[in-house]
């Protein structure tokens, strides 16, 4: 493996590194399994995998406290696993079964958990941005110090409602962190082909919102930036923008022709910047744990993911009467 990073963050504990390792690995193995089930016809429709971007949600979840909220786009499996939702419920939703988080009625793009303060899962690009600011509006109205993590991609960053939201979020000092997951491609359109803006976080400066670009492949850098943004929000200073420079290894969805970028580009990111390998190297090179310990973790994650796949296959389809339920609260 080329250009390995030195274990420069000596103040990070073994426990925390192992936690990051486990959580990122769970997302990756889960997504690989989802891709496999899709290929077998067990998952239908659209399915957008998060492989490559794991450090973003895992690093930011490390900055949250109970009551903080999160909302994202259709590429949402990783966010759900990172905030503590069960792999079984997520996988069963992917297969459209009654054991899924939405009883099989939402699918890959539309899952929610009130209990874990996960507000979706939104299929309309950019719609989650004002919705997330609205969650923050409610928290500010109620006078608590919770923050809302509002995730969107570099593609959504070109939607007008993002800037309508920036304007009001700063005007009303809403406790919302706008997390731009910049994986460089809006479906197949690279950032350079969609905007002349050099940075995406920089657009927030026009509205008075501070922000920064972060190495989104480095979970420790993500956590550090996240902590700063959270402190800003909790102190009542209004919104903050984190532009996470990240990369998606797989296609936009399962039906991606992969004609818009080279295989070499993808391989280079995998071999030089992989977020999970980075943490693995930190653990091993500092002698914090052995190869055997990591292998044991790998196996336990594999077991969780396999169990979720079994659950998702065995869970019954929703009862036909479910067609007519939940239309109204």
């Amino acid at each position, binding site marked *: 493996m080329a250009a390995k990073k030195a274990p420069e963050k000596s103040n990070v504990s073994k426990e925390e590194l192992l936690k990051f390792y486990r959580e990122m690995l769970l997302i990756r193995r889960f997504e690989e399994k989802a891709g496999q089930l899709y290929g077998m016809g067990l998952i239908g429709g659209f399915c957008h995998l998060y492989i490559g971007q794991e450090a973003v949600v895992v690093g930011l979840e490390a900055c949250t406290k109970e009551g903080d909220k999160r909302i994202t786009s259709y590429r949402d499996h990783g966010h759900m696993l990172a905030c503590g939702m069960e792999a079984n419920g997520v996988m069963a939703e992917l297969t459209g079964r009654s054991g899924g988080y939405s009883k099989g009625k939402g699918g890959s793009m539309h899952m929610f958990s009130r209990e874990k303060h996960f507000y*979706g899962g939104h299929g309309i690009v950019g719609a989650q941005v004002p919705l997330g*600011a609205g969650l923050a509006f409610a928290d500010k109205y109620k006078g608590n110090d919770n923050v809302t993590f509002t995730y969107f991609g570099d593609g959504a960053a070109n939607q007008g409602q993002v800037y309508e939201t920036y304007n009001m979020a700063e005007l009303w000092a809403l406790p919302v962190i706008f997390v731009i997951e910049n994986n460089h491609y809006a479906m197949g359109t690279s950032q350079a082909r969609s905007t002349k803006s050099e940075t995406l976080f920089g657009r927030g400066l026009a509205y008075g919102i501070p922000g920064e670009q972060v190495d989104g492949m480095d979970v420790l850098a993500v956590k550090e930036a996240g902590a700063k943004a959270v402190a800003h929000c909790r102190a009542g200073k209004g919104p903050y923008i984190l532009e996470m420079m990240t990369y998606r290894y797989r296609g936009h969805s399962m039906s991606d022709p992969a004609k818009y970028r080279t295989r070499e580009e993808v391989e280079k990111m995998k071999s030089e910047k992989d977020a999970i390998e980075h943490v693995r190297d930190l653990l091993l090179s500092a002698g914090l744990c052995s190869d055997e310990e990591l292998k044991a973790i790998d196996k336990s994650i594999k077991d969780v993911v396999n169990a979720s796949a079994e659950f998702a296959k065995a869970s019954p389809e929703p009862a036909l009467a479910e067609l007519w339920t939940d239309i*109204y609260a």
Partner: protein
Amino acid sequence: MAVDVLMPALSPTMEEGTLAKWMVKEGDVVKSGQIIAEIETDKATMEFESADEGIVGRILVAEGTSGVKVNTAIMVLVEAGESADAAPAPVATVAVAASVAAVAAPAAAVAAPAAAVVSKASADWPEGTPMKTMTVREALREAMAEEMRANPNVMLMGEEVGEYQGAYKISQGLLAEFGAKRVVDTPITEMGFTGIAVGAAWGGLNPIVEFMTFNFALQAIDHILNSAAKTNYMSGGQLGCPIVFRGANGAAARVGAQHSQDFTAWYAAIPGLKVVMPYSAADAKGLLKQAIRDPNPVIFLENEIMYGQSFEVPDLPDFTIPFGKARIWREGTDVTIVSFSIGMKYALEAADLLAKEGISAEVIDLRTLRPIDYDTVLASVQKTNRCVTVEEGFPVGSIGDHLASTIMQRAFDYLDAPVITCTGKDVPMPYAANLEKLALVTTADVVAAVKSVCYR
């Protein structure tokens, strides 16, 4: 030469106003562009500038006079040395007391045809309940204020709802009572603030979103449909959205195609939404209070022309009207006329005219379009065997179309004639006064349709 200064029309729908304050007195020299009076419309108090130069020869309408009709002479401007004696004498009858009666008169006229004939008292409030007269505008304001007093999580947001006191004065006084935290002025950014309001509803608030008119809600349609209406279903029942979207819907007067459109049938097509469009002030109040308490997204459609109309409203500390319950305004035996909102005005007027020709019409106000009270409509049609629907919206895919198909499927054997749907014409709303009139549904349309289904 003496010039009459006339009461101006200061809004598209203004027919009369209050001469709130004179800024000049007799004998003053007035320059063109000078503010000479403050005039209060049903929407706002506005400064009135003189278009002419001269000396105030005579003030014809006293300060404080209400009910001054547009184009009434309110002042005479004379040239130096000229006498105002040639001008008309002050209009003595436009005194304050007299004009109050004049304001109340059209209200009585609106309520009269129904009050005279309705036999079954409304079951929405107990018999013998004391009533008070109020406009639809006041009823809407009271509904919001009462619900905001009762529930600290109810809040209002929209363009000009606070400091401006509401573009149509519906929210007048709410900022003063509830403060800027709960009466939130937004920038002109419908998509953004609608998304924020939906998120806030998920976060535990009960937002009321005012669209200045529903024409502007098109900018926000994605959040109304995809975010508010569908999420409870997509989340398996976890994420209901207790929110009210309200504002003026349908044609106002002379504002052209982009500002004159009835969206009732559009919203009524969407599962997950509830859709309300009241006619009377009592229904406006009771249904809006119900909407604010409903745990689902409610589209609450108002009508600008109805805002200033007065009705009898129960004088109760708290009352609501359930959704999905039509009101029979007038009982009849020969034909059923089904309508809602301003369409009821034409339906009731038509029923009056038809009565004189010996046709007895039953007039039903649907009040809510999702859910629809099919049972009341079907029971009536089974009695009268004929049906005419009345609405302002476009003809294709109208509420009337849906009712006609429902009646055909569920009461086919009872029909003695095809159902006729009276709607607005299938054209964008024209600006020219004569064409606009032609584009809208009228009382005459309803009378003709009833005669047709009665083979008269």
